[in-house]
């Protein structure tokens, strides 16, 4: 099997996966955020360091929900671009300026998502511990997040390289 047909076959599967995730992921976060707003006490599970009876006001719950919703935006944006990219790959269109821009956009959005995966828990902890006897401010950086950051950075670099490759290809097409 040629590389192109392999690329097309895998892209066809990834297209449906990315499309499904781009719809399901925001819905899951919406449900999660809605549950947090209607049952603010349930949010305390996010900060195990806090005592069980720590009060959580509707404003705090709303802020946590807002932060969660904003944090998911780059991931959804990356997934939407992946849908377009896989659709093009599935159709056999591989090296184009549009695809290169899509890869670059995916890399940038995933980098932002990786950054949010560090910042969001920190913000959630701070917001939820605001009325607690002792406020919590902690930044956690595990190997999974680091790997995510590196992969997103790599994808961004590949995106730049693909933009350059697409430009060279377009230039070459002007030569006979």
């Amino acid at each position, binding site marked *: 099997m040629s590389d192109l047909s392999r690329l097309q076959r895998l892209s066809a599967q990834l297209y449906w996966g990315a499309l499904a995730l781009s719809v399901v992921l925001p819905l899951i976060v919406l449900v999660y955020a809605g549950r947090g707003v209607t049952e603010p006490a349930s949010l305390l599970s996010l900060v195990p360091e806090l005592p069980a009876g720590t009060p959580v006001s509707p404003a705090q719950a709303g802020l946590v929900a807002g932060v969660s919703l904003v944090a998911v935006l780059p991931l959804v944006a990356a997934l939407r671009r992946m849908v377009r990219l896989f659709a093009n790959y599935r159709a056999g269109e591989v090296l184009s300026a549009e695809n290169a821009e899509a890869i670059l956009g995916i890399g940038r959005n995933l980098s932002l998502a990786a950054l949010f995966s560090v910042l969001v828990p920190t913000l959630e902890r701070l917001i939820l511990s605001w009325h607690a006897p002792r406020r919590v401010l902690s930044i956690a950086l595990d190997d999974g997040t680091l790997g995510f950051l590196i992969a997103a950075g790599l994808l961004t670099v590949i995106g730049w390289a693909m933009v350059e490759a697409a430009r060279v290809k377009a*230039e070459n097409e*002007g*030569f*006979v």
Partner: protein
Amino acid sequence: MPAVQIVVRLDVMLARRKMRSRELAERIGITEQNLSLLKSGKVKGIRFETLAAICAALDCQPGDILEAVAEG
């Protein structure tokens, strides 16, 4: 320095050698469409490989096909 542009004189050489565009395209291994674009100067450039094949097919020098003329 006066600006010059490169003009393709392929039509002239084809007429001198009494060769059709289709035959030349077949001999040098490019499409008739690309040869037509080359003849009309609607390309960014020509590869040395293509130029060498044209020169071999038409038994001429690159200067017989390409000419630098002053712009304006």
